[in-house]
């Protein structure tokens, strides 16, 4: 097996047949976003990181969600009229870290391994590569998060006697949570593409999630009250709480507002990433 089988009938003396172009038997047709999506799906399903991060997230959401419900049930189970759905909050906050990691790795691992050069030679349109990654990643995390959130919410409702939740509340704490977490992952993907360094981007994103709530309590000065309030209200954990109808503060984003906000941020990050990738050498 020292050389590939080559059709001998095509063979010519080197240097003699300068004008004989090689014709590939594989037909050429404009590549589409669909092809890029298929490619990105193969990439996402064929690495261990996907199973690890999403697996850990599912485990966290289930154990913490069900554990809280069982704990409350063991302690008399009186939710004082609050809907039991809100108990899913704790698992989701921790699970969001896993999605952030996967979002960053989706693009960061390409830069880390050098795969990005191969990817961009196969598909020179930076926008198409990022769009395909975003579509595949968003769909997968949305489905996994929504299904897990629904299982948790359903079990909590069965275990506890809270106030009955409306259809709108159910939708927010399942589909709403799924969309929000997937959008948070997209923001991470955008940051990962801009930063090009997995560890750096993950650190930035964990800072974005945790820092506002860590910093806010230290803002004693009167002048900083406004900023303190803003940081708390718009911190990612509080926005997640708002989707569950359980916020730290009375004002701030509510209903579907957090989702619109996060989708807007994700769109900005991805738009920025496309602009940067188009300008930058790989």
């Amino acid at each position, binding site marked *: *097996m*020292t*050389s*590939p*089988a*080559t*059709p001998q009938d*095509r*063979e*010519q*003396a*080197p*240097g*003699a*047949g*300068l*004008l*004989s*172009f*090689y*014709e*590939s*038997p*594989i037909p*050429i*047709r*404009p*590549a589409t976003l669909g*092809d*890029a999506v*298929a*490619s*990105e799906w*193969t*990439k996402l399903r*064929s*690495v*261990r*990181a996907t199973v690890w991060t999403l697996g850990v997230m599912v485990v966290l959401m289930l154990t913490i969600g069900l554990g809280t419900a069982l704990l409350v049930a063991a302690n008399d189970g009186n939710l004082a009229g609050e809907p039991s759905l809100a108990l899913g909050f704790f698992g989701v906050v921790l699970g969001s870290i896993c999605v952030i990691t996967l979002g960053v790795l989706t693009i960061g*691992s*390409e830069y880390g*391994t*050098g*795969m990005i*050069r*191969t*990817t*961009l*030679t*196969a*598909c*020179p*349109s930076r926008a198409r590569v990022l769009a395909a990654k975003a579509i595949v990643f968003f769909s997968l995390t949305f489905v996994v998060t929504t299904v897990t959130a629904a299982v948790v919410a359903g079990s909590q409702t069965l275990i506890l006697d809270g106030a009955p939740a409306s259809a709108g509340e159910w939708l927010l704490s399942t589909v709403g949570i799924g969309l929000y977490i997937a959008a948070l992952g997209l923001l991470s993907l955008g940051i990962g593409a801009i930063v090009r360094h997995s560890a750096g981007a993950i650190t930035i994103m964990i800072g974005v999630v945790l820092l506002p709530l860590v910093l806010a309590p230290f803002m004693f000065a009167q002048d900083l009250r406004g900023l303190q309030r803003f940081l708390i209200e718009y911190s990612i954990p509080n926005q997640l709480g708002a989707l569950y109808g359980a916020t730290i503060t009375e004002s701030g984003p509510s209903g579907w507002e957090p989702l619109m906000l996060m989708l807007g941020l994700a769109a900005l990050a991805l738009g920025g990433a496309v602009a940067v990738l188009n*300008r930058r*050498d*790989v």
Partner: protein
Amino acid sequence: MIELEGLTKRFGSKIAVDHLSFQVRPGIVTGFLGPNGAGKSTTMRMMLDLDHATSGTVRIDGKHYRELEEPLKYIGALLDAKAMHGGRSAYNNLLCLAQSNRIPSSRVDEVLDMVGLTAVAKKKSKGFSLGMGQRLGIASALLGDPEILMFDEPVNGLDPEGIHWIRNLMKALASEGRTIFVSSHLMSEMALTADHLIVIGQGKLLADTSMADFIQENSRSYTRLRSPQQERLRDVLHEGGFTPVETAGGVLEVDDATTEELGELAARHQVVLHELSPQRASLEEAFMQMTAGSVEYHAHSERDPAAEPPAVGAGWGENWKKPAGTDSTDGTDGKGA
């Protein structure tokens, strides 16, 4: 066909590629030669639109890279063997590339078979040896069965069997009418594979010539003579109409003469000879002389006296490849200059 026109790349104030213009023609293997840091890889990255050219253009079959509809079917490239995700199997690494250009998945099996990686197709590519990684990279270049193939330093780190395989592969691909563009910093390697040569140094085009012409112009043959009666031998040679050049260690070198002529001349004058050997300057040396002025990373030998003039051939790769038959242990061999 690849056409470069005035291709230039600046990194800050440093010019990596300086107004390069040349064509890579189909049906032959074109060697792209230059010392380390000459701008070979930067040029290749610009051809693939990975790096933006500061000015100038690259056309592939008349089109800019970004205008190619399914680029893998026009041009396949091996840039560096590790440009794959190590956590993914060889098969999946190729499959995701194939899908982005709508290449049937059966072609993935075909190219894996071609490069001899079928047995490890399902193994993670991070466990691959350098040679296996190189084969995987070549498989990805062949994936779209493209008309143009580009290989950046394909024999780096390969064992002799692998080197032999790549040489034959490139020749076979060229004989099918494909355009083969292969970079190297080893002239000796190029001499065995390339039909045409493009030599650059510090980003500038130094030569664009056929291999046959390059060999003709650059391979000097001469005869090496060593004698205990060196002074006398020199006089005798002068009398005989030859112009001996003295090199280190009292060795005399004579151009344009056969060993028979010189041996008989010495015998007639009863000069004792310790050595009389035909020599051929290697292409490696010709290449080094050509690029000597444009070598970017010089290794400075501690033995070099500071006052030494910048001799041709000194610096890059000095002494590591001597003409065959040179058994001098003296490190200050002056290459017969």
